[in-house]
């Protein structure tokens, strides 16, 4: 066994260094940074566009000059109490007798977007509004109510009859909702990273096939060691990527204090420490299994076009597995959840979600052994297919399944 692992290590070391010690790797490592910069730039533009839309929006009251002060005071008071600052600014327009005509004209204004306009007697006001501006219309109604009520009571507009004491607290635990959120994060995170990184293994044998090194490797090592070594090498690259970005994101969360908010949302049933370890293990299994499939398929492909054509169905299959696992973690006791946990290609995702939903640890030991067996079986099968299909060793499918080939 140690001999086999040593052989794997030789291949893994070569592949890891061949990827990491190139300028291309820097581009690969920093690719998300480009995505973040684009997102920030795009987000900033969208925010500016949204802000200009808000700035141009208004609600209006057509009122007599003697009502204007009370209306303004009521608007300030209600915005302060209800936190309605996000609603459009209020504009008070002096009445000239033809309020209805003026209101209609306001909705046709070019430079200002009037979302709601109130006119008429404050005891029975008319509020015209765009269909989507119900809350703006509601604010105008409350303004009228506040003015009329204050005048009737003879009290100042800004005087409150009740004086609540607000006491914000942080939730001690996120509860079932937090577990579901955690489960979803785990499933999506492992799926996303696996699909992003394991797909690279599809072309890993292309280099050896094109420069004929495969003959050297096949003569010196069992193909299983070549395949596993290549997977370990590329997994090392993936780990480097994940570690780098985990540190970067962790640091960003730490310095912006957003980490506490996110951690408060997450509540894995097994506890945060074991949960993170399990997620790491499930990512490993998921990467190795999908990577082995990609590697096996890529090994059979004769051209880059074949590789692209063959990798698409695998990607679609993985998206389907993600869908099943996501549905399963939302309904942890369902048959679908059990299926997702057992089916090898969705097991890693679903069991990561399981760790968020259920405190028992023993199912994870079983799941990891089960998944490791599938990784081994996939590598074995992929290596046999490579020997038969590419090295032309013959023996047909019987040999691919490890059975003795028929001879004549």
């Amino acid at each position, binding site marked *: 066994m140690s001999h086999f692992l040593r052989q794997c290590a*030789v291949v893994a070391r070569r592949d890891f260094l061949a990827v990491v010690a190139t300028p291309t790797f820097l581009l690969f490592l920093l690719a998300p940074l480009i995505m973040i910069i684009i997102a920030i730039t795009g987000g900033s533009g969208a925010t500016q566009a949204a802000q200009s839309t808000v700035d141009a929006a208004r609600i209006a009251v057509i009122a007599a000059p003697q009502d204007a002060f009370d209306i303004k005071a009521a608007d300030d008071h209600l915005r302060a109490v209800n936190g309605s600052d996000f609603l459009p600014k209020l504009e008070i327009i002096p009445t000239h007798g033809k309020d209805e005509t003026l209101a209609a004209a306001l909705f046709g204004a070019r430079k200002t977007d009037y979302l709601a306009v109130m006119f008429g007697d404050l005891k029975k006001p008319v509020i015209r509004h765009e269909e989507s501006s119900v809350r703006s219309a509601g604010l105008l109604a409350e303004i009228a109510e506040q003015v009329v009520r204050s005048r009737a009571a003879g009290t100042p507009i800004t005087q409150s009859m009740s004086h609540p004491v607000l006491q914000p607290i942080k939730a001690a635990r996120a509860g079932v909702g937090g577990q579901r959120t955690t489960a979803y994060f785990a499933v999506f995170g492992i799926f996303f990273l696996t699909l992003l990184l394991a797909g690279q293994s599809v072309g890993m044998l292309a280099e050896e096939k094109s*420069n004929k090194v495969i003959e050297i490797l096949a003569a*010196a090592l069992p193909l299983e060691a070549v395949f596993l070594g290549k997977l370990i090498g590329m997994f090392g690259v993936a780990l480097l990527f994940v570690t780098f970005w985990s540190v970067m994101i962790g640091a960003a969360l730490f310095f912006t204090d957003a980490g506490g908010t996110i951690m408060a949302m997450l509540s894995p049933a097994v506890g945060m420490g074991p949960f993170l370890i399990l997620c790491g293990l499930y990512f490993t299994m998921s990467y190795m299994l999908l990577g082995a499939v990609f590697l096996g398929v890529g090994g059979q492909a004769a051209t880059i076009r074949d590789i692209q054509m063959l990798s698409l169905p695998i990607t679609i299959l993985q998206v389907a597995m993600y869908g099943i696992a996501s549905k399963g973690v939302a309904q942890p006791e369902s048959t679908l959840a059990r299926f997702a946990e057992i089916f090898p290609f969705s097991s890693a995702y679903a069991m990561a979600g399981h760790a968020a939903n259920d405190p028992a640890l023993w199912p994870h030991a079983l799941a990891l052994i089960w998944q490791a067996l599938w990784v081994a079986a996939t590598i074995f099968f992929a290596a046999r297919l490579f020997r038969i299909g590419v090295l*032309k060793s013959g023996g047909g499918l019987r040999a691919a399944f490890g059975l003795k*080939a028929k001879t004549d």
Partner: protein
Amino acid sequence: MSSATPVWAENITKRFGKAHAVRGVSLSVPQGSIYGVLGPNGAGKTTTLRMLLGIIDPDSGTRSLLGYDVPRLASDRVGYLPEERGLYPNMKTVEAIAFMGALRGLGWAEGRTRGQALMESAGLGHATGKKIKHLSKGMAQLVQLLGSIVHKPELIVLDEPFSGLDPVNQEHLEHVIRGERDRGATILFSTHVMGHAERLCDRLSIIAGGLVRFEGTVDEARARLPMQAHYVPNMQSDAIGALLPEDATRVGDGWRFIVPEGGVERMLVALIKAKHGVAGLTMQRPSLHDAFVEIVGKANIGDVVAEQEQAL
């Protein structure tokens, strides 16, 4: 099988689809020898070597490599230079040699040290820091050869090692092969260039049509053809032909013929008595090339099929 037989095969066969690449090859390579597998293009040499090394499995027959029925179990004690050369183009030369050593169980540090020394002894000291992609084809081929012997293997298998090399590097490669044999290694190599085989091989097999057509020493192969003589008379005359063997043919000023079983003495006496004299007489042993052409020429595909059917 004797322990002094590093490579041994008994009637191994291989078929790719409907094509029979190897129809039943048996061979036995003595320890410490240089053994050649000769044959024309498509004879099955490479397939035979790949089966012996365990890269592919035979459809039938048995084989043994350094005492193991499963050749891969002996892989750390074997060096292999494949017909299609392969190196990672971005690796530096010494690193490539160390990598090939590491594949066969040699430590990386030791591989680098030995690689450096091998490069210098091969006259490639100036290229130790270069990447493979910056070497000429011949230099890269030599680097790969050094990689296949860096772990001091007991058995070295070289598939068409001389192809693509210039005469100087071919000479150097012959020197390396002899050096490895002197170290105690067994060398098994394939070629279709007879000169190398003639100079290097202790024993050889000639394969044609997927079958072994000859197995023995170079001398034994040459001995399959009779010795030839080239006679130049003092005086030209049409009557000379009557005193020479029946197969004698005129070649320039002289005559070429196969030396009769009883020798040439009696014939020379007759020629001298008839006043033709002897201006020159050379006796020439047939070359391995002649023997190869004769052996392979006989093995046309009709024979192969008939022999195979008979074997079955």
